[in-house]
């Protein structure tokens, strides 16, 4: 793995995570009217754990192996029909997640652009 791959690995994983989380949150909104539906979410803590394992504990490939897992949110308060989807909370999380995604694509873009500059041999 060269330096370019290494610096890209984390960005790539963040994009995996934001995409999986957007899927989970969008599905929650779709199920907002279904009685008994329990909201799902993807935890970024898993990604952080994988990064720590790789960097601090020298577990090679821990980051590469990590995949986002949608899990049922057990702490969300159910409404009268047992559904745990709350529009406002869901929407705020969707916006937050989309900003994180944008930030990660921004990083990826600037890396790709500098790579392009290096290949072409001139700036821009």
């Amino acid at each position: 793995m060269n330096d370019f791959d290494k610096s890209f690995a984390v960005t790539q994983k963040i994009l995996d995570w934001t995409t999986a989380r957007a899927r989970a949150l969008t599905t929650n909104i779709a199920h907002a009217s279904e009685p008994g539906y329990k909201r799902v979410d993807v935890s970024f803590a898993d990604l952080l754990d994988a990064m720590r394992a790789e960097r601090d504990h020298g577990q090679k490939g821990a980051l590469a192996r990590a995949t986002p897992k949608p899990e049922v949110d057990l702490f969300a308060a159910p409404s009268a029909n047992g559904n745990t989807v709350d529009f406002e909370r869901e929407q705020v999380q969707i916006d937050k997640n989309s900003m994180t995604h944008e930030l990660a694509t921004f990083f990826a873009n600037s890396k790709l652009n500098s790579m392009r500059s290096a290949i072409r041999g001139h700036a821009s």
Partner: protein
Amino acid sequence: MSEPLSFQVFDITASALAAERTRLAVIAQNIANSEVTKAANGQPYRRQRVQFEGVLAQEVARRGKGQGSLPAGGIRAIVGDAPGDFQRVRDPGHKDADKDGWVQKPNVNVVEEMVDMIDASRTYEANLSALRTWKQMLSRTLEMTR
């Protein structure tokens, strides 16, 4: 099911939009028929009710393979008769009144229908806005290739 996972979100949201629209249509039908004392079957109009059911995606079968498994797929609206007694109103001279002057009216509560309508339209909008954000995220990702 060879479709990319990213595009299944469109189907899930589309199913929710369709289900909420069905719900709105049924509410409109209930309100329109709220005074119908004699429907096709000779009885007063019976309120229709929409129930939501989760459609488990085939994706669930592939669960455990790790890659982006979600516990549920789209949703489906099921329309059926709502239970509940017809209202009885005293209105002698009404063409459907019985010999004592009582008329049976549909089991539709217009106020309830209006509240339900607001809920349905709000859910519809929330789905639209979630879909918009998802689309925006995908195009951001695609822009990286430029």
